[in-house]
């Protein structure tokens, strides 16, 4: 192995504190090093050219750049060496700026010693680097969209318009979701179906979209680029190619009436029915639970479209990405018994009032008391039913129900100016563009806002009695209404659980699907190639669902447009000789990349390279292609070779948070003691017990394991595994006579350079109190035996 070492002055950033010339001379003495140079600015063209010509002339196999953080210039130097013909992974950086010159400005001698260690560690690792090939695999450019609500529609259209083939799978006989059932929508009060129907028609007409309604997903296998999906289309008993959508003929003949689920039980429909007049596709459907098999509809149908012998059809798809837009389900209001829904006919839900207000709905737009059919003259909206409520297990705010009630109250007030309309609320949540103005408008219309959550609703002879405390007046009151509307919350769709389980999606405590990062990655799932849009990841208004549909579509496009994806080669692999098939790794992997059949197998397309599995494997059968065990052990040995300081700490810092935090401490010039030698790992979960033990065996006084703050791990749960392992290790250390306090964990965000610096400072002090490693051993043994 022939290694070149390049020590950067970074102008005076490094050279003012560290003795660069001494570092260079030291580097020359290291094994495998054939050349060591110091360069003013290594990242400049001149600097890069020096490296390139050395690679050519001196036939270097690997390069070590001692300069700034690899998080800054690793990509630069990888490019440099590739241009000179080396494999990009034959590079290692020693971070002597952020971790040395900038944080130890007052101790140049100790800092120079630390820099020597860092360079020695980098050279030791470089000697063990192997070229890694980035593999490109062809992928399917087709996308599966699950769920034909407004989010799914928006995703499907964007993808199709960009030229990608889309399979849109919807469980119900029509697309459109809940939006298709609403009356006017806030904050503009435009007619919901009027703006949605053209989009639904576009989906139907677009040749790039294959629409599969009345269909369900049964199985999903494979990974990003190649998901193999199996599904089934249920029989409608109506031939879609023949049905003209006239519906009155067949349903007029049908003798069976059942409550219409698309009116939320307010109206009735026949056993052969069309979900909504604007159904897409415009094809009738027979509800087999209701049908009595009389055959009248087949006789009535002028197109001979009714086919009682229709069978369910299985389909198989091969898609590159999947967009989950499975939506939500309404809270079951009868669970709040004190409000009487299901017992009192005049207690209805938001969805029912939407249907009543809808001109095409069961009451043709009139607000009536279901018990009498008369127009309701006083109407109460009760907010937060099934939301913000621990007693039903939904502590979250459903976000849209305040606005929905404001809107429905306005519509009622506009239609019936004399009606007494009140909204019983805890807080009015109107945070959105134009929302507060919308609230203002409702107030101006004379809607009564009563601050206080309703405790119960009782039916009397002449109407419904609502009990509440007007908390602003401080009075407990009771008020009579003709009609009570329960503002029901949004819940995670239970029917989507199957898809979630097939894909391995994780759920938040509120049961909605979890996205990869609550802020930065709003439409990505933890699983590569899977995106989540709309209410599947939590309650959202229509406009946000549409935006998320588009966002998910654009993410899928980025992924699949080229028709191939590059697989990151820095993944895990299994030594099948060693693997005992214990399956311990399977559950540790946050990306669900490992499966076990006799022996474990890592799906390289899924693996994100965190290394948690490698640390978990009890027989060391899992290895990482980069950050391998032997590379890290070599770094530990190089770090502890001299031990020029007491106390001496070996630190393992995760790339994403704690290492980034250390970088920030550097750029912020936060000074901390020189006693630590930092080894970069991708995840705190990568830290194998053997690393810690090796560090102690080689005389480290303390070992620090640092990762992202709990709950913020880049790989979701790596730091939890790290924590667990540290606990076990501490027990082990106690057993072998090492004070467990010598092993410290620290969680810090990338923004918390000060936290990290303080932790290091504290650790140094604690270790000073404990004395050098082995002190406790000496104290435990009878004197003279050490």
């Amino acid at each position, binding site marked *: 192995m022939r290694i070149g070492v390049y020590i950067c002055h970074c102008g005076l950033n490094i050279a003012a504190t560290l003795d660069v010339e001494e570092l260079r001379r030291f580097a020359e003495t290291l094994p495998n090093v054939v050349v060591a140079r110091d360069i003013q600015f290594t990242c400049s063209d001149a600097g890069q050219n020096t490296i390139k010509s050395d690679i050519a002339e001196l036939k270097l196999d690997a390069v070590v750049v001692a300069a700034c953080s690899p998080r800054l210039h690793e990509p630069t130097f990888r490019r440099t060496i590739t241009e000179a013909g080396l494999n990009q992974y034959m590079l290692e950086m020693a971070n002597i700026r952020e971790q040395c010159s900038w944080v130890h400005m007052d101790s140049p001698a100790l800092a120079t010693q630390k820099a020597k260690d860092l360079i020695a560690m980098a050279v030791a690792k470089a000697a063990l680097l192997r070229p890694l090939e980035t593999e490109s695999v062809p992928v399917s450019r087709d996308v599966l969209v699950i769920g034909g609500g407004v989010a799914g529609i928006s995703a499907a259209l964007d993808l199709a318009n960009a030229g990608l083939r889309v399979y849109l799978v919807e469980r119900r006989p029509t697309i459109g979701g809940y939006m298709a059932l609403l009356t006017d929508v806030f904050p503009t009060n435009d007619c919901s179906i009027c703006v949605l129907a053209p989009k639904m028609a576009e989906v139907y007409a677009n040749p790039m979209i294959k629409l599969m309604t009345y269909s369900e997903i049964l199985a999903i296998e494979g990974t990003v680029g190649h998901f193999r999906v199996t599904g089934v289309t249920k029989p409608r008993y109506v031939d879609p190619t023949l049905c003209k959508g006239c519906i009155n003929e067949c349903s007029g003949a049908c003798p069976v009436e059942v409550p219409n689920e698309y009116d939320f039980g307010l109206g009735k429909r026949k056993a052969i029915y069309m979900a909504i007049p604007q159904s897409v596709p415009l094809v009738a459907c027979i509800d087999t639970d209701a049908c009595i098999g009389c055959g009248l509809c087949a006789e009535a149908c002028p197109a001979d479209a009714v086919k009682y012998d229709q069978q369910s059809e299985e389909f198989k798809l091969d898609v590159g990405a999947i967009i989950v837009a499975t939506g939500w389900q309404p809270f079951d209001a009868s669970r709040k018994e004190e409000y009487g829904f299901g017992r009192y006919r005049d207690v209805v839900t938001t969805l029912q009032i939407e249907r009543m207000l809808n001109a095409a709905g069961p009451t043709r737009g009139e607000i009536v008391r279901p018990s009498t059919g008369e127009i309701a003259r006083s109407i109460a909206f009760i907010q937060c039913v099934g939301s913000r409520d621990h007693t039903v297990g939904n502590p979250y705010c459903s976000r849209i129900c305040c606005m929905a009630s404001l809107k429905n109250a306005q519509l009622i007030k506009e239609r019936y100016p004399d009606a007494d309309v009140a909204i019983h609320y805890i807080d009015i949540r109107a945070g959105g563009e134009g929302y507060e103005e919308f609230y203002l408008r409702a107030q101006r219309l004379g809607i009564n806002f009563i601050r206080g959550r309703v*405790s119960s609703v009782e039916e009397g002879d002449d109407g419904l009695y609502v009990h509440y405390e007007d908390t602003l007046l401080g009075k407990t009151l009771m008020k009579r209404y003709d009609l009570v509307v329960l503002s029901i919350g949004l819940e995670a769709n239970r029917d989507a659980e199957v898809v979630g389980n097939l894909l391995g999606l994780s759920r938040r405590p509120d049961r909605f699907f979890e996205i990869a990062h609550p802020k930065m990655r709003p439409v990505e799932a933890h699983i590569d190639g899977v995106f989540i849009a709309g209410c599947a990841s939590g309650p959202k208004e229509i406009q946000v669902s549409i935006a998320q549909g588009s966002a998910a579509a654009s993410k899928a496009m980025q992924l699949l447009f080229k028709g191939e994806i590059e697989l990151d080669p820095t993944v895990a692999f299994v030594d099948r000789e060693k693997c005992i098939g214990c399956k311990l790794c399977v559950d540790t992997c946050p990306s669900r990349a490992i499966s076990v059949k006799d022996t474990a197998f890592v799906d390289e397309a899924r693996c994100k390279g965190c290394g948690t599995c490698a640390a978990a494997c009890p027989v060391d059968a899992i290895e990482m292609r980069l950050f391998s065990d032997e590379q890290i052990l070599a770094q530990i040995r190089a770090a502890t070779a001299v031990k020029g300081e007491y106390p001496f700490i070996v630190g393992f810092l995760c790339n994403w948070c704690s290492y980034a935090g250390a970088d920030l401490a550097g750029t912020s010039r936060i000074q901390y003691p020189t006693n630590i030698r930092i080894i970069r790992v991708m995840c705190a979960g990568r830290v194998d017990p053997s690393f810690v033990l090796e560090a102690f065996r080689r005389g480290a006084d303390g070992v620090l394991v640092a990762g992202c703050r709990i709950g913020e791990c880049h790989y979701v749960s790596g730091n939890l595994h790290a924590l667990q392992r540290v606990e076990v290790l501490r027990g082990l250390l106690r057993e072998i006579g090492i004070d467990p306090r010598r092993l410290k964990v620290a969680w810090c965000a990338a923004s918390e350079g000060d936290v990290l610096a303080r932790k290091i400072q504290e650790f140094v002090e604690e270790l000073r109190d404990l004395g050098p490693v082995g002190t406790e051993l000496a104290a435990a043994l009878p004197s003279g035996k050490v």
Partner: protein
Amino acid sequence: MSDAAFREEVVRLAGDEIRTCIQCGTCSSSCSTAHLMDNSIRKLIRLVLEGRRREALASESIWLCTSCLLCTVRCPRGIRPKAVVSALRQICEREGISSRDASFERIFMDQIRSKGRISEVLLSAAYALRNPDAAVPIMEMGIELLSRGKVSLDPGTVKGMDEIERIFRELGND
């Protein structure tokens, strides 16, 4: 006791969740005696969280709670408002603060001691005499109940009055 210390003690006794009260009033409007209370149970929680010790402890509501627990069953934050009442009662007892309505308890006990049971009518009447503002609704209800034969004027005396007397003595209540 300082106001802050008072708040912390109630929080400790009644549970940390009370800090999360959103003042929605579900508890107070569920409360069977809310109409008799000076401070609703919701407001009581606010007083506690504000550390308004004197006002909270002087509140008659503390003594009117019937422990029906509807507040606790319904609170959307999982708070136990009844536990706040208990905590305040406990602090009152320790500090020797008693309710104006201790009279009620006294009348109650006297009747038990003399007849072994209570007479709703006599109890209410005796109570109404001492608390004129509560008298009107009580009388209205009493007349209604009497006319329907739901209550009687003389409840009679239970058997085994000596047993009752013994219980009183054992409780150190002569």
